[in-house]
């Protein structure tokens, strides 16, 4: 779409040529954080966006005549533009150099890369199994992470044990990396639990279904981390960061804007990780924004970076840098991982009503798992023994999921009265007592089957 007349149109470069032009696929763009000068100069300073992390400034005070220069505007092409994405692996799996982010992946060994590959493959297997179980009636609903494995696994691998994650409801890849048994994730979708795992033990909060609400929880939690004195100590075992995951649709929610405000003014150690998967159920990102989602953050005084979310290496590197900034006391970072929801919103959705098969096919050719596979193969780093072992592991996971789900049983009806309050509440206790008395009044109570006890 045209950028003409869009709000960003006056964000023209002060130094023409400071950012590369063209390169719609982002294959060569050395993009880096858009760093707001306001972070340094305070709220009164003019908002200045840099595109290469060094000097190029885009100021609202630039004369409008600059628009006619040959330089690209800061945010060309609207919210679905692929230009300016940090990319370390091309869609065909070729490693491309990046002056700023190469350092973050330099230490990764082939074992590390295979670990990422393994996690992505297993999470996709989980998606497949869970979707099948939903079709068989074992789950009420399921939301696939399909297509977003690189953004989730890459960013998840950048976390340290003491970090804390506030996910939305599609972050199965992060859950897996945080050690959550993926069958516990399905407790929610089967309808036996509203949560399903211990959020403290895993540093991975419960899923939040009200869009965007948890970004404030993450920000407040990060404010608490600062109070606890656990940023900027220099001790890698102590310094702590918080990550919250949300989607492109969520950025329209007021709570996300409020989270950006609170994160900025408190310099909270939080990474706001937006997976722009291009679809909020049926609404494209163009219904949520007219500029790239990441362009919002600098206005709040928060540096932002756009990354190719189907590139696991870039997702890892960008998140590692943002986490490092957070842990060292540098405050929040907004990451926009540009990716694609290859599946439906949930098993209740029908994408054929609102998007083309051509688009789906285009993104299938940019599959994040295939990209890493191609790269590893080019390095001769995917031995058949590893692949065979992984295939067996996937089959075992499938079996584990199927048997565990079917064995989850039925919560007792009286369990609905548990944990409403941390301390007894007379109203709940009275209703529980009545209900238990009522239930026990049925003579055929022992051995009853569901729906037949009356």
């Amino acid at each position, binding site marked *: 779409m045209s950028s003409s007349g869009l709000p960003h149109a006056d964000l023209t470069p002060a130094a023409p040529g400071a950012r590369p032009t063209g390169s719609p696929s982002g294959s060569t763009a050395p993009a880096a954080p858009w760093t707001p000068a306001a972070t340094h100069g305070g709220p009164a300073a003019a908002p200045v966006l840099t595109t290469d992390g060094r000097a190029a400034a885009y100021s609202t005070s630039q004369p409008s005549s600059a628009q006619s220069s040959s330089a690209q505007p800061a945010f060309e092409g609207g919210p679905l533009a692929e230009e300016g994405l940090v990319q370390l692996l091309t869609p065909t799996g070729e490693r491309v150099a990046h002056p700023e982010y190469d350092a973050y992946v330099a230490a990764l060994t082939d074992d590390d890369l295979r670990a990422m590959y393994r996690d992505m493959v297993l999470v996709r297997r989980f998606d497949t199994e869970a979707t099948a179980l939903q079709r068989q009636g074992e789950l009420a609903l399921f939301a696939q992470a399909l297509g977003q494995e690189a953004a989730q696994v890459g960013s998840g691998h950048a976390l340290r044990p003491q970090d804390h994650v*506030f996910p939305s409801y599609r972050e199965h890849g992060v859950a897996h990396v945080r050690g959550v048994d993926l069958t516990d994730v399905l407790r929610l979708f089967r309808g036996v*639990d*509203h*949560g399903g795992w*211990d*959020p*403290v033990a895993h540093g991975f*909060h*419960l899923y*939040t279904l*009200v869009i965007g*609400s*948890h*970004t*404030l*929880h*993450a*920000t*407040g*939690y*990060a*404010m*608490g*981390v600062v*109070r*606890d004195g656990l940023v900027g100590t220099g001790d890698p075992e102590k310094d702590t960061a918080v990550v919250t995951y949300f989607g492109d649709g969520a950025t329209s929610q*007021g*709570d996300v804007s*409020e*989270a950006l*405000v*609170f994160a900025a*003014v408190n310099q909270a150690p939080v990474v706001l990780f937006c997976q722009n998967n291009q679809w909020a159920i049926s609404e494209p990102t163009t219904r949520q924004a007219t500029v790239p989602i990441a362009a919002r953050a600098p206005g709040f005084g928060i540096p932002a970076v756009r990354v190719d979310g189907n590139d696991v290496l870039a997702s890892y590197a960008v998140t590692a840098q943002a986490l490092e900034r957070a842990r060292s006391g540098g405050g929040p970072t907004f990451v926009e991982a540009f990716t694609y929801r290859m599946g439906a919103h949930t098993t209740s959705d029908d994408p054929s009503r609102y998007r083309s098969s051509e688009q789906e096919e285009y993104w299938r050719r940019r599959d994040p798992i295939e990209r890493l596979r191609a790269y590893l193969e080019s390095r001769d780093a995917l031995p058949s023994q590893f692949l065979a072992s992984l295939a067996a592991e996937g089959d075992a996971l499938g079996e584990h999921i199927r048997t565990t789900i079917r064995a989850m049983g039925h919560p007792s009806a009286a369990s609905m009265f*548990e*944990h*409403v*309050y*941390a*301390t*007894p*509440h*007379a*109203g*709940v206790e*009275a209703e529980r007592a009545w209900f238990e008395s009522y239930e026990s009044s049925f003579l055929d109570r022992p051995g009853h089957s569901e729906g037949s006890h009356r």
Partner: protein
Amino acid sequence: MSTATHDSPAGLHLPAAPHAAVRPASTGPTTTTSGPTDATTTATTHAPAASSAATTGAPARSSDIPPFPTGVQKLTFAKAITLGLRRALADDDKVLLMGEDIGRLGGVFRVTDGLQAEFGDDRVVDTPLAESGIVGTAIGLALRGYRPVLEIQFDGFIFPAYDQITTQLAKMHYRSRGRLNLPVVIRVPYGGGIGAVEHHSESPEVLFAHTAGLRVVTPSSPAEAYALIQQAVTSPDPVLFFEPKGRYWEKGEVDLDAPATAPHGDAATGMDTARVVRAGTDVTLVAYGPTVTTALKAAEAAAAEGTSIEVVDLRTLSPLDTATVAASVQRTGRCVVVHEAPVMYGTGAEVAARITEECFFHLEAPVLRVGGFHVPYPVAKIEHDYLPGLDRVLDAVDRALAF
């Protein structure tokens, strides 16, 4: 109606206030409750529990920070809450206050006056002007082990935070199967009678009492306020703490040395119980928050005409202490419920239903309700025709007695 027969909320006597939010706190108080006027005791320095100044980086007390008063003192409602918060801050360094204008200004009602000077701006925090953000970040802080006490500036401004309160704060403990607690207190100045502009006089308490997972309490006097706020802060559950702003400048005796009691349970002083505040034999008047004073005045007026009214202060709307109300109605046989909130679907409806179920054969008359109408809160010039004043309460008492 003649104003002489109205209950007289403090705000009635205030200079014209075009916007209550900018009304200086110092314009009150104007009315007092009964009791000796010379009840003050010698103020001596009292170290309120484990002083946390050394461990939290709070500034050392400067000479202009008054020592914590002790003994029985005659205090305004607002000051009683201030001192309750002050004790809570001193007792537990995980307690922090958050809200709009609560720091240097001391809150638009001055309830947090002086607390930032004493405890520092990292424990008495001026937040961005965003109610959802205040509650949402408080949830995160609570998950990290803190005990945030939030101020929502006015009742009508709680709605931007309604989603966070009802979908997140109320349900986190349940959703986590008891793994997570959210000990968050939300203080809400509520109710009318202060001549304010729109959205500054509402009574939205039942919206929260209707939401499982929240506790909803409201004090009716300075002594109650001092105790209840401390109990609310120590509760492991989220608490909506509704403060009757029309009573902020009324005075009453407060025993500042009263030990902090456990917040929950059957103790008469606990947070979960209603209380009979005046004994009587003919009619039970059930009230809470701002209408308790109204009910007590009604009882006084009725006594002069030979009618004996028992007044029950609910104190808590969730849980609702049905047992105390039922015991009273079983003695009197008649019940009138009074609140400022609209009658339709209100607390009175809940009390009436429960009393009908539990006291059916004791009732001499249907349970009657007196409260606001099913209209938006009206303009200030006619708000005293909307609010349940002394006349409307006595009228309902007469109707109950006529059965």
